[in-house]
């Protein structure tokens, strides 16, 4: 039954949304506006809060800052290293899980376990596994005849260490989404394909993959967005440093450093805006891609 809002019903509703709006307004809406403004602070007194002039200096500064360029580069490496691999592995596991009945729930629970654990705590555990002398991973590599790898102290390996751990941590989440997606595919398609003579792999490429389009889109968008925001892992894995010799500097770490350690609010805000724009562009591109290639 459609009924139009009245002044009375509006006032009453206001009471219901007011507590939420107070918090969200103060800590979500207002800061968005304020960040945008702050990124354009050209001259700012952090003690008095006075802004003497606005400009795009902050943006110019960060793009001249090799550390920021490195942060962007590393973040992209991280996203490219984590998202495709994570999607491939989790899709594989989801398909396997979907093919068994017995113990399927048990396996799923295990794959999902990292999702509920503290990133900081598990990063410390991984730091121990990566240990160059006593670490489990180097021991295993040694058994296979490889010489130990300095995961956490060699700048050229720090991103690799980060990526492996992030894939491990994020699998469970993607697996759940893929399981839902797989279950939404009508079994009749498979029967029809079987009658049409499609073999297992052909059924996968011709039915599973295309019909999983929306899930794939979702998983990749969420994966990209989350990966762009990587911070806790870096902080905990490299003992409050952005990797050896700053080699694992990421955009969010850069924001944290500029803001928290160097009190350069304008620079930090500008970096935050750049992060936001990158995420926005990626999401829009993925949406366009989704529209073009996923039909139904």
């Amino acid at each position, binding site marked *: *039954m459609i*009924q139009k*809002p*009245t002044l009375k*019903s*509006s006032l009453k*509703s*206001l009471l*219901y*949304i007011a*507590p939420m*709006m107070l*918090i*969200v307004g*103060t800590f979500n*809406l*207002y*800061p*968005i506006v*304020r960040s945008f403004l*702050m990124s354009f602070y050209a001259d700012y007194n952090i003690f008095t809060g006075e802004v003497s002039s606005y400009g795009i200096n902050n943006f110019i500064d960060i793009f001249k800052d090799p550390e920021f360029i490195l942060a962007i580069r590393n973040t992209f490496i991280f996203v490219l290293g984590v998202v495709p691999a994570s999607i491939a592995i989790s899709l594989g596991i989801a398909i*396997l899980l979907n*093919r*068994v*009945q017995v*113990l399927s729930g048990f*396996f*799923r629970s*295990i794959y*999902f376990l*990292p*999702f*509920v*654990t*503290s990133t*900081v*705590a598990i990063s*410390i*555990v991984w730091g*121990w*596994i990566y*240990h160059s002398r006593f670490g*489990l991973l180097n021991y295993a590599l040694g058994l296979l005849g490889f010489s130990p790898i300095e995961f956490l102290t060699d700048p050229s390996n720090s991103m690799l260490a980060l990526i492996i751990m992030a894939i*491990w941590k994020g699998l469970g989440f993607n697996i*759940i989404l893929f*399981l*839902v997606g*797989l279950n939404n595919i009508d*079994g009749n398609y498979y029967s029809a394909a079987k009658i049409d003579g499609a073999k297992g792999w052909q059924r996968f490429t011709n039915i599973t993959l295309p019909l999983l389009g929306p*899930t794939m889109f*979702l998983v990749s968008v969420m994966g990209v967005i989350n990966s762009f925001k990587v911070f*806790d892992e870096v*902080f*905990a894995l490299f003992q409050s440093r952005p990797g050896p010799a700053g080699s694992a500097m990421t955009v969010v770490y850069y*924001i*944290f450093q500029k*803001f928290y350690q160097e009190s350069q*609010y304008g620079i930090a805000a500008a970096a*935050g805006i750049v*992060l936001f724009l990158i995420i926005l562009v990626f999401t829009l591109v993925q949406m366009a891609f989704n529209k073009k290639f996923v039909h139904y």
Partner: protein
Amino acid sequence: MEEVNHKETPLMTKLFKARKKSETETVKDSNPASKIAVYILLTIGSFTMLIPFLWMISTALKSPAEAVAMPPVWIPQIFRIENFARAFEVAPFGRYFLNSVLITSISTLGELLTTILAAFAFAKMKFYGKNLLFTILIATMMVPGELLIIPNYLTISKLNLINTYSAMILPYLASVFSVFMLKQNFESVPNELYYAAKVDGTSDFKFLWMIMVPLSKSAIVAVAILKIIGSWNSFMWPLIVTNERLLRPLPVGLQAFTTEAGTQYELLMAASTIVIAPMIIIYLFLQRYIIMGVAKSGLKG
């Protein structure tokens, strides 16, 4: 009345119960050998997933010598439970733990209260500008939370709340995501039920708490658990707004402990276990709600 639980059961059935349609597929096309191969792959995979946890617990129970032994020892000679006690001595983990419990429970209860009220207004009440406001709120979900940290820090310091529990709780007393999730669920409660309750003499407020909330129990539990996990594990914000040791929640305390414990890996692993274990216990008991929450957030996000 089926329509209410309806919304949840198909999903739950899909994830937890009979997989009827794929069953027919598997039964027909997989010979025993390929089935065994699937199980072997899944077992290897889950073992790989478990290694960090097993290694953490194993190390947490070792002597210092065993911890750095090469080749690695999986099962220590004696289970040194006292490592946990020592971790509590070296750093105030008891206090950290209480801090985490306090922050997590207050922000979860607070968020439930604010979001249930707001979600109800968005789902069932009529007011001017409802759609516009909701669109704005949804749009804010696009903005990375990390961007908000700077102005929020300034707000908190302006309110003179740096180094207080309030600083860690206040910003998390509401969540657009939870409003969104609950609104979807509340909308699935049929309008007739609302009218019936109106005729029966309930006010909107009573209807919300006596009918709507009990009916949406599983969605609310799912939202609450996702919140508990997020709150328990949150790191950057508490790190920024506290520098007093006794106010730290567990992840921040644990991070600081890495420098305090130095190379005593058995203590570090014991401390990590203290941080991780409560969420794993919650997960083991309530995993269907967590997985439902994730699946639903995925479906909508």
